């Protein structure tokens, strides 16, 4: 992972967005009854974005010095993505408790007691603040959605 330049990845993202939106613009149409259609601005923006993305992809040095990717943030991102996928199925409490224990244990090397304390205090604190005090009706348990 360390070998990949973040600027190149960003360039690739720019190119992908420019292609997706630019090609999509063709299906929307550029003119509707004599005036610009919904596709015009996306086409213009994509047309300028595409060469910028290519430039970053080819010569990442233009941005100056950047730091390589690291493993920890990427695995943490994966954990958070799994969390987001589990929430609609299991409700807020269980996935959040698990994620917080994993976060403190694995990513910060805390003891199990500390990790559990963080998970329980933070989860219950948020539930009390948002569900009870601010009246946000968030499904807390499986099936309560």
């Amino acid at each position, binding site marked *: 992972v360390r070998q990949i330049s973040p600027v190149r990845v960003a360039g690739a993202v720019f190119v992908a967005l420019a292609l997706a939106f630019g090609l999509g613009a063709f299906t929307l149409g550029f003119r509707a009854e004599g005036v610009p259609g919904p596709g015009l*601005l996306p086409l213009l923006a994509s047309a300028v974005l595409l060469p910028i993305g290519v430039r970053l992809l080819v010569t990442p040095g233009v941005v100056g010095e950047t730091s390589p990717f690291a*493993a920890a943030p990427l695995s943490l991102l994966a954990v958070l993505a799994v969390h*987001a996928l589990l929430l609609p199925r299991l409700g807020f409490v269980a996935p959040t408790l698990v994620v917080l224990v994993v*976060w403190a244990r694995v990513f910060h090397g805390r003891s199990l007691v500390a990790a559990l304390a963080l998970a329980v205090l933070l989860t219950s604190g948020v539930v009390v603040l948002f569900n009870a005090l601010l009246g946000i009706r968030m499904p807390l348990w499986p099936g309560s959605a």
Partner: protein
Amino acid sequence: VIESAQQLAWGFSLALQPEHVVYAFVGALLGTFIGVLPGLGPLTTIAVLLPLTYQVGSPLGALIMLASIYYGSMYGGSTTSILLNVPGEAASVVTCLDGHEMAKQGRAGPALAIAAIGSFAAGTVAVIGLTFVGPAFARLALGFGPPEYFALATFGLVLASTLSGGPPITGVGMALVGVLLGLVGVDTVTGVDRFAFGFIQLTNGIELVPMLMGLFGLGEILYNAERKGALALITSRLGRLFPSREDWRESRGAIGRGSVLGFLIGLIPGGGAILGALLSYTLEKRLSRTPERFGRGAIAGVAGPESANNAGATSSFVPLLTLGLPGNAVTAVLFAALLIQNVQPGPLLFQQRPEIFWGVIASMYVGNAMLLVLNLPLVGLWIQLLRVPFWILGPSVAVVAVVGAYSLRNAWFDVGVLVVAGAFGYLFRKAALEPSPLVMAFILADILDTSLRQSVLMGDGSPLIFVTRPIAAVILLVTVAVLVTQFSGMRRLVPAVDAVQERT
């Protein structure tokens, strides 16, 4: 002028209503509380706290709270710049230069105090300036049609993206990504679904708040997750809090000049705080009899930019409220927040809802005073917050962001938006790409799209209308000039830009 003064007095009577004072107090306190957490700048702070303002009943109350959150977060950002050398936003980088040096020399106290006092003085100057400039702007804007709006929005975007730090090409790229993402959803003119890619949840566009919380909050947390060592917090020697007589003598002029400079630059869409802070720093260094002390703990190097920053933050509300054009990423978020409250900023707001304009202006003053009262005594508490270890801070911000994203419209889908935006935020942070042009463009996309199409409609299908309308033509010409200078290597007009870019 007398009329404006009367209107301002009316504004004060609104802002000083007990409920509004409470909103200002809570906003300033929470804004500082979140803003002082390392790495969380004003945009993140506003994004995290935005859902709270939905609970506020009135648009004026919500806007007063948001403005106070903004002020508080800026002060919090100054604190982390001075004590940790961690700027919360690009404009605070300038404060780091001398503020952190002062802290290392055991003079963190005077640095923090002068930042607070300078901000307060600048806020005062800016509010007085607003009283006169605001109505003039609104009158001017009444004559603006779609071509002028398109030209101004383009100008603001170009200026903001090329001055955001880093090479201009990346700023422009980020702004274009923002435009594209901002166009997702139903087209308001034809009713056609644009770029929803099959997600029914995207018909109303990508939700702003989860995107912001992801780009800035989650992105920052992910970025910090790889850093094992703690930040070097300098609190052992805070020094005396109040500046000495000599400090005063050195700062007075800097505060005055910074306030005026920052105010004027904040009026320009896209000018923003970073340019004001940079120019003020360069100016003070030039005027100083001891320029060699700049970068080594000169108090004028903190006082000037901090004042410019705050004055610019205040005056950037003028284009937002009178033209309906946000000039930077923060006012762009406030723009979106106003729309949520069913308030359409623009010249008509000034006529039809004067209480919003004058109430907010007056409440800025109240908010500024509150920060002064709040922050000088509470410095010790904010320093304790800087000590919160990352294994508690990171997960806390993430969990609050998850609930915040869900709560906007009770949709887990927006938690997905949050995580995807977080991945983007981390990527941009690693690639040294500044996300604020993206945010500003995301919010301006709708204005750009609509005004472009209306303009061409006005011109009977011809884009020549942008050349034949004199104001639009001049603005677009200046825009092209900015692009040419930025891309042709003439951008070294401000030498300090280099110093700042090395640090961002």
